């Protein structure tokens, strides 16, 4: 018996690693097969990161944040400021409003990007730590609306701050190298970020930390009574989300090539809402849910969004209402209800049938 379970366990493990391998191969080859769509595919991985990091708080911890876009924008600005600031004066560069173009060599560019992304991750994490202890004391809808305010306030401040270009935004340095290399480079960078985020979260959820934040979601007061330092766990959870979001923001700033304070960096009504929507669409509180949700949402968006010019937000609003009202359990949640065995839940025929003989149930 135990031997049998071991072999099935091993079989499942091989099947899983085969699955991972297949995804890895497809993802590595994809930009070579469809070179025209590299930017869109890079955004797919960014979306995966956005949804996964939102789900740390929203799904696993039960804290629905509308302000995670704050870390995204902070990362974007910090990366760009460092990329520029390592080589020239930021104030003068921004005052020229794109008139002064920075053309670094490849080595300089990689140095700037590396330092920028590193510091961006640290800055975003620091932001989360500073705001975390105040904000995460709030619960439920107060947290949701407080974070919404925080994200928008950041955008308003960025739009008024001359050092980072104020309302007219900021342009990151130009990528050196031939055309097409830039898209490919950022595709693989986003892909690497998504993979690292996924496995880091997989690891975290499997351990003590995952159990603690799930306990906070289920009943925060009881979790605290059991001796979990809830404030500490909540803040660390937000910091983890901010760390990856900061890097994602830095990458997006370079992919887009132009940083506008309200519409790209602190874009509450695009990226900020998308991350919530993608996590819910896929099924919040699961590891694969946000990934699936991001893939489904992003592919649908890329296919149909161009036909909706001028009506995209109407469609987005409609989509939010429909998903939240009619499909709150998400794709994975739906599948779990339909095929519980597939998710490792044993269903008693008595419970499932509802009318089975009670004596039979007792005998089992």
């Amino acid at each position, binding site marked *: 018996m135990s031997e049998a379970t071991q072999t099935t366990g091993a079989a499942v493990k091989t099947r899983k690693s085969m699955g991972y391998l297949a995804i890895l191969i497809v993802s590595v080859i994809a930009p070579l097969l469809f070179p025209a769509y590299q930017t869109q595919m890079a955004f797919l991985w960014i979306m995966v990161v956005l949804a996964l990091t939102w789900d740390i708080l929203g799904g696993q911890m039960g804290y629905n944040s509308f302000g995670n876009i704050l870390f995204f924008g902070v990362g974007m600005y910090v990366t760009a400021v460092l990329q520029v600031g390592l080589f020239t004066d930021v104030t003068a560069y921004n005052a020229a409003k794109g008139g002064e173009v920075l053309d670094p060599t490849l080595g300089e560019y990689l140095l700037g990007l590396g330092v920028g992304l590193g510091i961006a991750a640290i800055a975003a994490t620091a932001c989360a730590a500073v705001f975390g202890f105040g904000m995460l004391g709030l619960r439920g809808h107060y947290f949701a609306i407080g974070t919404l305010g*925080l994200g*928008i306030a950041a955008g*308003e401040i960025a739009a008024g701050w001359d050092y980072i270009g104020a309302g007219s935004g900021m342009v990151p340095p130009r990528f050196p190298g031939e055309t097409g290399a830039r898209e490919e480079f950022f595709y693989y960078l986003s892909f690497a970020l998504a993979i690292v985020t996924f496995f880091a979260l997989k690891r975290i959820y499997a351990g003590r930390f995952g159990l603690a934040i799930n306990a906070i979601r289920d009943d925060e007061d009881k979790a605290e009574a059991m001796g979990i330092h809830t404030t500490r766990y909540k803040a660390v959870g937000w910091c983890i989300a901010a760390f990856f979001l900061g890097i994602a923001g830095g990458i997006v700033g370079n992919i887009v090539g132009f940083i506008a304070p309200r519409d790209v960096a602190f874009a509450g009504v695009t990226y900020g809402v998308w991350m919530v929507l993608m996590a819910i669409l896929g099924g919040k509180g699961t590891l694969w849910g946000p990934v699936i949700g991001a893939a489904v949402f992003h592919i649908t968006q890329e296919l149909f969004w161009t036909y909706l010019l001028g009506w995209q937000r109407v469609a987005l609003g409609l989509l939010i209402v429909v998903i939240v009202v009619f499909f709150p359990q998400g794709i994975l949640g739906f599948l779990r209800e339909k095929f519980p065995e597939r998710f490792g839940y044993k269903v008693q025929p008595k419970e499932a049938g509802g009318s089975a003989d009670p004596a039979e149930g007792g005998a089992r």
Partner: protein
Amino acid sequence: MENLLLIFEAPALGVQLVVEGILLGAIFALAAYGMALVWGVMNIINIVQGEWVILGGFVALGVSQAGAPELLGIPAAAVVLFAIGWLCYRLVIFRIVDRDLFTSILATFGLSILLQQLMNELFGSDVRTLDPGLGTWFMMGGMVSISQVKVLGFVLAGVIAVALTLFMRNSRMGQAIRATAQDARAARILGIDTDRVYAFTYGLNAAICGAAGALVVMAFTIHPYQGLIYTVRSFTIVVVAGLGNLPGVIASAFGLGVAEQFAGFTLGAEYQNAFVFLLLVAILISRNMLLQRQRKYLK
């Protein structure tokens, strides 16, 4: 920051800011009262609030463009918005009344995004205003100027508030609304059609916001994407005042209006919105920290 010193050197400026703030605050109080109403009765935090305000402004604009007198725009906005609010309840809101607050926040946020762009497509993306052709009073030797339309807005906001209080206190529907707010299940047992009460409450909220929006378009300006800040102002006011506390709502609305004017003057107009959002965050955090000392939290 040099503007801060200017206030001390010329006290008339301070007076001007306080007057403007109070006149502005009266309009915020209307929207905030509507939000408290929906929150208290239906347990929904209505993020669309600001979009109802802006939509009310566009209705008033439409009425005046049709050739009717400008002031007719206020009742017209209220009536049209009541109908839209009722329709909105029948289409979407009734499905989320019994759901958790996050669902209602996200669903109404979706509606808000939808309405923003819908208004943008229907009415254009210009900053609009409506001039009812009233003059300006000057006081303190011309140092303080008060535009009459803002005073009119203030007075009308007061009239609407009194009418609402009387309505909630005396009419059958007002009593039904208050009963439903206290205990929806008991109200149902006593024969109140709570679904109808909810629909009416939501419509009434939209109507209040619509009237406020008609005042906004006359006294200030409107823009299709400007709604969210009215939502946040309403929410801030309600968090400070508490639910079902009309005097508190009015007092904190005046406070917010005055604070905003001073912030806009000293920090620069480009940071005025940022101030409103940060004030919300600061108020939430500080209130919660005070409660946490007693091991409680904002509920």
